[in-house]
């Protein structure tokens, strides 16, 4: 249901505006709105001082956010922290200093990581390096990068042809698929190999910046100790980042909260109307929380009054939905649509009743219901997220209806219950009574839409009586049409036929007079929507027939084991379809057909002035 809202007005001396806004922020239950300016007052606006302060806070906040984000890249998570922040000037200095320090650490880390990765790509060659370079004084050393193993084989073949055994080659394949090659040849053949490599367009491997100016042989000897140095330097960077986080993390977290809160409070102050001596601030609050607003504003010079409803009727009031615990999980389904307009009807309670019921009518199988109930329990126990828990509760409600209707239909995994346990339909055998099931589906649709029309009529009675009467009469026409059809097919005595038809025609004329010719079109639309509920029968029949086919499989194959395996797979597929298809169709029946009778979207969300809260952080 949509809870009742009150429009309140807070008045006080201008010097108390800031403190009042902060007190309302602490309470967290008032949504400030642009205040109507009484004579002699003007909108608070943004003075140059406030503008400068806003810019200053935004700058500090940007620095803090950048420092926190950069610390996160260094593996340090700053957890949100409540408490007194540093004084503003100190916070500004700290944010600037910390941001620079943290960015410096991040840049240093990036360089070291790049160097370490490059050095590690050569690491497998280090083992052979000393042996290759120790004995031979006059050699030329080449470090090459090759793309693909076939190129390496071609290089070996070319070197064999050109130098015979007078060369040494060591290679290592990188994760990227490239090969790093260390080639040692006699110094006397250096010119030849330079020419060969240039002709073959073989690329020289890049060296880390720290050693790229040394001769290659010296550079290669230097790289191993350099790798150890780089690893140590990285550890020092990480230790520095941890030290920074420990020393100033709390200050950053409190500072971020403070800046956000101050900016929100400055925004809220802009909504006030002010004179030289006083201020007025208006806002929305739930009626049930009105006393808390008064309690939050303790100073005697501050007054709170409720603005009479007739002064604000028709305004865009924020919408707060509050449903009993049993219905609340179904807000997950209604939240997929826009909020209902204030003063109209929250469809959640209706969805909570009819969604599981229609699902149960469609699936109606004790076995599938029990499996679904087990899944709902597992999801409820395993998940800590509120959305998942809501889904688990919806699944539990749906499974209970599925079991109940399964008992009514006498179905347990299709006709398996009948074969094994002698289960019999208490009400309806869906495999045989297809027509009766169709009538049941259409009857459910008629009742569902009639309820929607009656709800719409009751809700609109105060605002637009002509429209309310039109909706009510449409519900009556639907009922009369149902009676006429039942009489036509001998389901009720034939004496009801003519009175029902005459009453239907008379009602139709009244509705057309009240609402115009479009009323006829609307009635046809509603009647068409009733037909749409035939999907309940179609899906239900398909579901039970698939289950029956699955049960026939154990006899359809030569091997009983193979047949049972196929039957299980078929039941699994049917269960998956059962979870998905009825959910979509029942949602559609609600969103399109049922909500179309009474739902009025367009409500704005309730956004009270409150303290900032960060998105959940996984530390």
């Amino acid at each position: 249901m949509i809870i009742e809202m009150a429009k309140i007005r807070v008045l006080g001396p201008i010097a108390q505006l800031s403190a009042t806004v902060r007190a309302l922020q602490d309470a967290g239950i008032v949504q400030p709105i642009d205040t109507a300016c009484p004579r002699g007052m003007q909108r608070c606006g943004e003075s140059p001082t406030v503008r400068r302060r806003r810019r200053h806070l935004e700058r500090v906040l940007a620095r803090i956010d950048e420092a926190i984000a950069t610390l996160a890249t260094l593996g340090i998570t700053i957890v949100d922290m409540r408490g007194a922040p540093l004084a503003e000037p100190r916070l500004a200095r700290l944010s600037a200093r910390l941001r620079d320090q943290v960015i410096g650490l991040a840049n240093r880390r990036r360089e070291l990581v790049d160097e370490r990765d490059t050095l590690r790509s050569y690491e497998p060659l280090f083992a052979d390096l000393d042996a290759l370079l120790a004995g031979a004084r006059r050699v030329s050393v080449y470090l090459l990068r090759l793309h693909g193993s076939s190129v390496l084989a071609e290089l070996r073949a070319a070197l064999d042809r050109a130098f015979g055994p007078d060369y040494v080659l060591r290679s290592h394949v990188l994760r990227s698929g490239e090969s790093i090659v260390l080639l040692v040849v006699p110094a006397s053949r250096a010119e030849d190999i330079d020419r060969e490599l240039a002709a073959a367009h073989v690329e020289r491997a890049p060296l880390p910046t720290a050693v790229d100016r040394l001769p290659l042989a010296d550079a290669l000897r230097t790289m191993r100790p350099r790798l150890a140095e780089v690893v140590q330097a990285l550890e020092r960077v990480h230790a520095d980042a941890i030290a920074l986080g420990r020393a100033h993390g709390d200050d950053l977290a409190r500072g971020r909260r403070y800046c956000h809160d101050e900016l929100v409070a400055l925004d809220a102050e802009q909504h006030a109307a002010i004179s030289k001596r006083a201020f007025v601030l208006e806002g929305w609050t739930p009626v049930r929380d009105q006393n808390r607003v008064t309690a939050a504003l303790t100073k005697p010079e501050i007054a709170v009054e409720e603005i009479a409803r007739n002064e604000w009727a028709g305004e865009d009031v924020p919408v707060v939905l509050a449903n009993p615990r049993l219905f609340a999980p179904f807000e997950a389904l209604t939240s997929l649509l826009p909020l209902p307009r204030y003063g109209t009807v929250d469809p959640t309670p209706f969805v909570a009743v009819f969604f599981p019921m229609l699902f149960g009518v469609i699936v109606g199988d004790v076995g599938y219901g029990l499996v679904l109930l087990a899944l709902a329990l597992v999801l409820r126990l395993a998940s800590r997220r509120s959305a998942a828990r809501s889904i688990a509760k919806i699944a539990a409600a749906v499974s209970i209806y599925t079991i109940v209707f399964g008992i009514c239909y006498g179905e347990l995994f299709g006709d398996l219950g009948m074969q094994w346990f002698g289960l019999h339909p208490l009400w309806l055998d869906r495999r045989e009574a297809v027509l009766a099931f169709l009538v049941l589906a259409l009857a459910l649709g008629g009742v569902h839409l009639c309820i929607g029309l009656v709800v719409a009529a009751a809700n609109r009675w105060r605002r637009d009586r002509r429209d309310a009467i039109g909706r009510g009469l449409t519900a009556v026409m639907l009922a009369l049409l149902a009676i006429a059809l039942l009489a036509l097919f001998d389901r009720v005595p034939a004496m009801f036929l003519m009175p029902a038809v005459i009453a239907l025609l008379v009602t139709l004329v009244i509705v057309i007079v009240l609402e115009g010719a479009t009323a006829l079109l609307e009635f046809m639309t509603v009647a068409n929507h009733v037909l749409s509920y035939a999907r309940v029968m179609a899906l239900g029949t398909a579901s039970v027939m698939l289950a029956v086919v699955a049960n026939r499989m154990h006899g359809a194959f030569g091997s009983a084991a193979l047949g049972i395996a196929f039957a299980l797979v078929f039941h699994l597929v049917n269960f998956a379809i059962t979870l998905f298809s009825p959910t979509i169709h029942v949602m559609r029946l609600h969103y399109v057909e049922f909500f179309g009778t009474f739902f009025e979207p367009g409500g704005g969300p309730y956004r009270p002035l409150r303290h900032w809260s960060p998105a959940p952080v996984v530390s």
Partner: protein
Amino acid sequence: METLSMSIAAAVAIAGCALATAWAQSKIGSSAAAALAEKPELRATAILMVAIPETMVVLGFVVAVLILLRGS
């Protein structure tokens, strides 16, 4: 002969509706996927839009059932 013609009529009723539904859903589905890529908040509308043409196949199924029941 009558059973055969009844069966063919039922098959045509549901097959025609199924093809029409498939064609409509292919058009709506691709457009809905494109819209969702830009505006994820339209997911409820997208689901509705894709589900709407299924009314055709549902009604086709009902007509097929009625034909078969009449035949039997």
